[in-house]
C-alpha cells in the first residue's frame, strides 16, 4: 500500500527535477470557476469534475487539472517565455469504475514559449520521459494538428468544415458527419420534405429560439443539400491519415505519401519532422517511438497539436501514468485576445510508486 506521505515525497522530488530544468513553482486554487470550465468543455465536464456551490459565488468546481488555472495565471501577468511546475491534488468524479481514484496527486511542467514550438514539444516530452524511464513504460504520441489541417483543407463548404472541426474529439459523431457530407447516407424522407418546404406546423412557437433561427437553419440545410458531396477520394485520404500507426520514421514516410494528395497537411507533417529532430537532439529514441494519428482524439482535452502519453504495458487496467500535449488554442480562449504557444505534461507519482512496488 502506497501512503500519501510517500506520494507527496515523490511529487516533491519530481517537482524539484522540473525546477532544476528551469521551471518556476506555482500554486493554484483548488476551487475554480465552474463557468469557465463549462464554457471550455461543455456539460460533459460535470461527469468528470466535482461541482459545489454557495449562494454568493454560485457553482465552483474542484480543480480537475492544473492547466486551465496555470494558463489563466500566465495570461494575466506572466512574463515571457515562462516555464512552470506544480504539484497537488486534482479531483475527478468517477461514476463508472470504482477502482479509479477520484483524488490524486499530479505533478506538471508547462512551457509558454513562442521561439521554437518543436523544441518546446521535445523539451516537455524528454523531461517527462526521463522521469518515468525506470518504469519501462510504453509511450504513445500523436498530433491533433494533422487532422484539423486535413479537415480545413477539404474541398467543401465552410459550415461543413466547422462542424467536423467541432467534433474532432468525438470520433463517432465525426464519422457520422463525414458519412453525411460525403453522401454515403441518404437524406431521410422527413428531411426531403423539410427541404421541399412541405412541412407545416400549426403549433405556436414557444421558447427563446426564434423563427428566424429556424428559417436560417433550414436555409443552411438547403445550401448544404445543393453543395457537392465530399469526394470519395478525400474520404479515403482522411481514412488513410487516421489509420497511420507506426514508429515515427515510418509514420513520417506514410504521412509524406498522403500529403502528396492532401497538401493541406504538408505544414503539419513538416512540424512533426522538425519535432522528431528536436526529440532526437534531446536523446529520445525516435526510431522506436510510436506515432498514431488517432491518439488523443477520444479524451476530452484541449490539446490541438502534439499529444503524448505513457502507459504500463503490463497493467492495462491503469490509466496513463503521464500525459501531455500542446494547447495553443486554450491560451487563445482564456487569453481575452492574447495568445501564446503552450505545451505541457503531467505525471502521477502515486501510480508510479504503485508500479515500482510491484516489480
Amino acid at each position, binding site marked *: 500500500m502506497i501512503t500519501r506521505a510517500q506520494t507527496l515525497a515523490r511529487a516533491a522530488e519530481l517537482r524539484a527535477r522540473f525546477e532544476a530544468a528551469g521551471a518556476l513553482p506555482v500554486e493554484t486554487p483548488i476551487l475554480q470557476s465552474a463557468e469557465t470550465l463549462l464554457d471550455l468543455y461543455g*456539460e*460533459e465536464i460535470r*461527469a468528470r469534475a466535482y461541482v459545489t456551490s454557495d449562494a454568493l459565488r454560485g457553482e465552483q468546481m474542484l480543480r480537475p487539472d492544473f492547466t486551465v488555472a496555470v494558463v489563466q495565471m500566465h495570461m494575466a501577468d506572466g512574463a515571457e517565455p515562462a516555464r512552470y511546475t506544480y504539484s497537488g491534488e486534482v479531483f475527478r468524479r468517477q*461514476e463508472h469504475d470504482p477502482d479509479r481514484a477520484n483524488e490524486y496527486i499530479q505533478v506538471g511542467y508547462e512551457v509558454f514559449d513562442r521561439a521554437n514550438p518543436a523544441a518546446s514539444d521535445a523539451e516537455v516530452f524528454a523531461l517527462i520521459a526521463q522521469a518515468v524511464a525506470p518504469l519501462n513504460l510504453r509511450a504513445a504520441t500523436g498530433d491533433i494538428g494533422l487532422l484539423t489541417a486535413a479537415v480545413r483543407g477539404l474541398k467543401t463548404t465552410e459550415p461543413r468544415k466547422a462542424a467536423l472541426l467541432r467534433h474532432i474529439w*468525438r470520433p*463517432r459523431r465525426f464519422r457520422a458527419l463525414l458519412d453525411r457530407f460525403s453522401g454515403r447516407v441518404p437524406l431521410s424522407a422527413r428531411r426531403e420534405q423539410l427541404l421541399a418546404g412541405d412541412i407545416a406546423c400549426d403549433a405556436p412557437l*414557444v421558447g427563446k429560439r426564434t423563427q428566424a*433561427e429556424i428559417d436560417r437553419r433550414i436555409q443552411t440545410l438547403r445550401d448544404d443539400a445543393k453543395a457537392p458531396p465530399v469526394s470519395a477520394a478525400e474520404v479515403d485520404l482522411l481514412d488513410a491519415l487516421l489509420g497511420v500507426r507506426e514508429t515515427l520514421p515510418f509514420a513520417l514516410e506514410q504521412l509524406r505519401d498522403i500529403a502528396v494528395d492532401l497538401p493541406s497537411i504538408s505544414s503539419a507533417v513538416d512540424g512533426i519532422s522538425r519535432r522528431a529532430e528536436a526529440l532526437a537532439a534531446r536523446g529520445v529514441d525516435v526510431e522506436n517511438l510510436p506515432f498514431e494519428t488517432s491518439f488523443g482524439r477520444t479524451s476530452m482535452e484541449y490539446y490541438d497539436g502534439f499529444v503524448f502519453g505513457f502507459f504500463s504495458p503490463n497493467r492495462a487496467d491503469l490509466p496513463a501514468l503521464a500525459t501531455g500535449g500542446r494547447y495553443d488554442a486554450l491560451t487563445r480562449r482564456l487569453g481575452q485576445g492574447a495568445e501564446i504557444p503552450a505545451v505541457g505534461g503531467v505525471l502521477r507519482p502515486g501510480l508510479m510508486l504503485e508500479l515500482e512496488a510491484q516489480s
Partner: protein
Amino acid sequence: MTVKLGVPSKGRLMEKTFDWFSQRGVTLTRTGSEREYAGAVNGVQGVSLVLLSAGEVPRELATGRLHFGVTGTDLVQERLPLWEQQIEPVQELGFGHADLVLAVPKAWIDVDTLDDLDAAATAFRAVHNMRLRIATKYHRLVREHLRHGGVADYALVDSQGATEGTVANETAEAIADITSSGETLRANHLKVLGEEPILRSQATLWRSRVAPVSDADRVVIDGLISQLTG
C-alpha cells in the same frame, strides 16, 4: 432479522404494487393511521414491509438496508451508476410504464434527431451567447445519452417538476422528462425527438445483491421469489 421489502408509500404506484403482490398471494397493507407509514405483510412468513418514497428505494437497496424493493428502472439507472453490481431485477411488474424522452418545441420543424439538436445548439449559442438549456431531473442519464449521441453546446438545468412548462417560461429551450402518453408534451406545444427514448422504464421488483442475509433469511428469500415469480 427479517427480510425487508420496500414499496412506494403513496399513490397509484403503491396501490398497483399492493394489487400485484396480492394476485400472488402476498397481502401488503398499511397499518395504523392514514398518515402513518407503517405496513404489514400477510401470506408469507419472515418479511417486513417498509413504506418509503420510490426515489429512495434505489439507495436503500444499494446500501443493503432493503432486501427487496419496488421502483422504476428510471430511478435505478439515474441514481445508481453501477446498479448491476449492487442490485438485480427480479421481475418487471407490467405497470408504471414511462419513457424518458427528449422533447423540443413542436415548431422546431428543423429538429428531428440528436444530430439536428447538436446543430441547433451550436447555432443557438452563437446567437444568444449561451448554451442551449435542457430542463430535466435525470441529469446523469441525459448527459450520458447526449455524450453518446455526440451533442455538445448544451446545458442541463435542474427541474424537479412542471418540466414541460420551462420552455414556454423561457427557462429552458428543450426538456428531458418521463412521459407515458405524451399528452402533457402536446399540451405544452412540445414534440419528442424522433429517435429511441433515452430509457424505457416500468415498475420493477429489485433484489439487493449486498444486503446481509442469514441462513433463515435465505429460506424466506427463496420462498418469496418462487411465490412471486412462479
